């Protein structure tokens, strides 16, 4: 029996009258790639922010790597990696400076940072770009680098918020290979995406609408349940019933 890494019960976030996340419950097991799907405004990002210790839940409870999201936000932050679509790295620092910064932030020693940096640059074939400003890298490269930096300190869980938004199909493919590699190494991956082909790669998928989780299972089981040929059809069937789109 594998360990449960993320466990959420009746998690709710309200902003005034608006209930962004409405009593969601789920568990994520160690080494899983957990796809967190939903239309824009369904509440994915809000839910994810609560798990990462960026936002306090209004009610309900949850743990990440055994720590309470209400009380131990700062302890959780030591154990997770996080990468979002909007940015992630400092554009006005070079590749190496960014890696060194995050190595320092997560308390890796100088030598350890140096070793992991070299390994990372080799793996990404980035050696020649190591002194390039991150801001002048193409988006796809940036995202691959951001993922590598988010996992530099070998976190137990990594949260990816639409990591492949705006990235070309070839780079997306490479990005998912990196995700698989991380998962194979025991890292739990919690990922939101709008690409349904990516949902097919996940071990399990949850689909949110109107702040609630409407479906949660393996891609194959979901397709059976909804009588759909692809995840795309499953998603459409659920999203069509949603009020908040």
């Amino acid at each position: 029996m594998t360990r449960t890494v993320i466990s959420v019960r009746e998690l709710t976030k309200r902003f005034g009258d608006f209930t962004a996340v409405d009593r969601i419950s789920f568990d994520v097991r160690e080494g899983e790639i957990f796809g967190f799907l939903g239309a824009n405004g369904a509440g994915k990002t809000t839910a994810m922010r609560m798990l990462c210790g960026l936002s306090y839940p209004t009610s309900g409870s949850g743990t990440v790597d055994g720590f309470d999201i209400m009380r131990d936000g700062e302890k959780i932050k030591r154990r997770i990696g996080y990468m979002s679509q909007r940015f992630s790295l400092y554009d006005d620092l070079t590749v190496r400076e960014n890696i060194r910064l995050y190595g320092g932030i997560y308390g890796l020693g100088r030598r350890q940072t140096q070793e992991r940096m070299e390994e990372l640059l080799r793996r990404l074939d980035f050696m020649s770009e190591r002194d390039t400003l991150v801001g002048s890298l193409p988006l796809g490269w940036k995202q691959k680098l951001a993922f590598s930096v988010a996992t530099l300190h070998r976190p137990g869980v990594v949260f990816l918020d639409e990591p492949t938004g705006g990235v070309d199909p070839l780079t997306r493919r490479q990005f998912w290979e990196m995700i698989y590699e991380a998962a194979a190494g025991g890292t739990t991956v919690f990922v939101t995406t709008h690409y349904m082909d990516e949902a097919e790669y996940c071990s399990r998928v949850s689909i949110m609408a109107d702040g609630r989780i409407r479906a949660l299972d393996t891609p194959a089981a979901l397709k059976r349940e909804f009588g759909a040929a692809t995840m795309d059809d499953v998603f459409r069937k659920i999203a069509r019933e949603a009020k908040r789109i």
Partner: protein
Amino acid sequence: MKILLVLLDKEIRQFWRNRFLPVMTIVFPILVMLIFPWITTMEVRNVGVVVVDGDRSSASRRLVSKIGASDNFSLLGTAPDFNSALAALEAGEADIIVEIPDGFGEIRAEEHRNVSISANGVNAVKGALGTQYMLQTVMRTQAELLGEKMPFSPADDIAVLNLYNPTLEYRFYMIPALMIILMIMLGGFLPALNLVIEKEKGTIEQINVSPVGRLPFTLAKLIPFWIIVLAVLSVAMLIARFVYGLTIAGSAGAIYSASVLFVLAMSGLGVTVANHSSTMQQTMFEMFFFVVIFVLMSGLITPVESMPEWAQWITRLLPPRYFVDIMRAVYLKGTTVAELWREYLALGGFALLFDTLAVVAYKKQA
């Protein structure tokens, strides 16, 4: 503490990599110190004067030539009567009308008549100071005339000696104020903008989701600007010394220790404001609000003592008010830290308050 060094390294690299900030922090203070002391002056020169000479004697001519010779006045000419002189004043050509009555030169009381001075009060400073200068000129002329006719009369008996700024050089009064304005601008705005830029770009999210503590993060936002502001102050003091010949009457240590406290307070305020704002516009607007109050109410330009009582109470809540007192006293009078301990204590209190707020106002989890 290791984390602080990591973050400081980041901030310093980002500062130098910025195309605008290093240039701004070097050029702006130098320009301010080289240009503003020449233009921020309260001395009034070239007050336009029209004379209505009803006396036409050697005495009245002496007064007119004295007016003409003064730097403070520019003699526009004489007018035949008051009304035509008033027309020149209304047209904006003249600022002051001097009406010399018939019998100005006479000293016998029954025939003596007063000179009348009429000034345009629209520009109150120019009107008031111009009138003052003119009164002095008239009185000096009268005293001279009196002295010539009655050699034993007590003529000009009053001797004025201006201590601490013996030449009453207005520039010397303004230079410490300009240094303070620079420190408010750089010490307050730079850290505020630096922080809110991380919010706008979203990079602060990556910090919020990391184990970086609030204290090291805030300190890394403050410390570089403390150093920058003290460096800028040093450059400004060198310019004051070598361009304007203004030396510090007191000790440089007294200036620096007050400046450290002051920049701690200003940067703490800037970061607190940025912590509460989500956009650059919001931060800028709030900071301008504070800067306008600081500049107008701290005694930088007009003395606190001449403000209404209620306004004087408000000034006690403004950190620059104490710093202005310290800077002028140390720079011009040579006052010591021991004599100014209340002001130092007040500045220290503000520094502690604002820097604590800056750390507390930073929320990693909302």
